[in-house]
């Protein structure tokens, strides 16, 4: 009788490959959902083209060093959530997060929107990222999304009824927004 693969412990190189498959499945699921909502974008891992494109963005709010962040996170977090949103040859946004190893949440640590006024996904980046994040959380069996270190000015938007997050201010560590899925 053939054995059925099930969740199991796994070594590091194998973990990287298996998480890559899970990310691909989640991003495909989210892309179909977004297309049905009229948002036609490509959701990809953050590759060399994205790292080159972000360097050409002007007037960035912080200017996070994605060319350093991606190698750091790849080395440390095989289960990371990494996302580059493209529309045609325009890079619309980048996002980075990771699952908690022993808890039921998936945390998003960074979103950077292409600040160009001509960004075709302007105003829709957060919804697209949250949808992809939720898909990856479901794929992993997680039940909670967290947005770490939210900008204070955006918290009311995350906590608005459509997004449905609530603000959590723990005694230790910074504030985050949380919602169940």
């Amino acid at each position, binding site marked *: 009788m053939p054995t059925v*693969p*099930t*969740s*199991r*412990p*796994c*070594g*590091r190189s194998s*973990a990287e490959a*298996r*998480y890559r*498959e*899970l990310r691909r*499945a*989640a991003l495909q*699921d989210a892309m179909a*959902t*977004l297309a049905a*909502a009229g948002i036609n974008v490509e959701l990809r891992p953050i590759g060399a083209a994205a790292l080159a494109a972000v360097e050409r963005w002007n007037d960035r*709010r*912080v200017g*996070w*060093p994605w060319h350093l*962040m991606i190698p*750091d*996170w790849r080395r*440390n*977090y*095989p*289960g990371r959530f990494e996302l580059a949103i493209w529309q045609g040859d325009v890079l619309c*946004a980048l*996002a980075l997060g990771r699952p908690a*190893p022993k808890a039921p949440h998936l945390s*998003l*640590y*960074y*979103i*950077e*929107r292409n600040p160009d006024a001509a960004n075709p996904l302007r*105003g*829709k*980046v*957060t*919804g697209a990222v*949250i*949808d992809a994040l*939720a898909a990856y959380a*479901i*794929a*992993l*069996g997680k039940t909670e999304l967290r947005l770490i*270190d*939210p*900008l204070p000015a*955006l918290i009311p*938007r995350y906590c608005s009824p*459509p*997004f*449905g997050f609530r603000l959590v201010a723990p005694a230790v560590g910074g504030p985050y927004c949380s919602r169940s*899925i």
Partner: protein
Amino acid sequence: MLTEHMTVSSRTPKARSVTLPAPGGQRSRAVDVIPTLDEARARLAAAADRPRPWLTPEGLAVFADAPTEDLGPNVYKRPDAD
């Protein structure tokens, strides 16, 4: 002749082979249990009709006039600085 100590030592590498190595010399982490692709696809299929209020017209209006949609700290915090 093998001593008991040597016998135990020879088993140690096998015991470690299922544990995700600690990144960058940090302290050891728990074994990483990863869903299979089939499990993930089944979960996604089962959740296909889940509500996605952020993609409704009301949801898409929430950030329509936001000056930024960035999330994160004002400096990059390296993972080993957590």
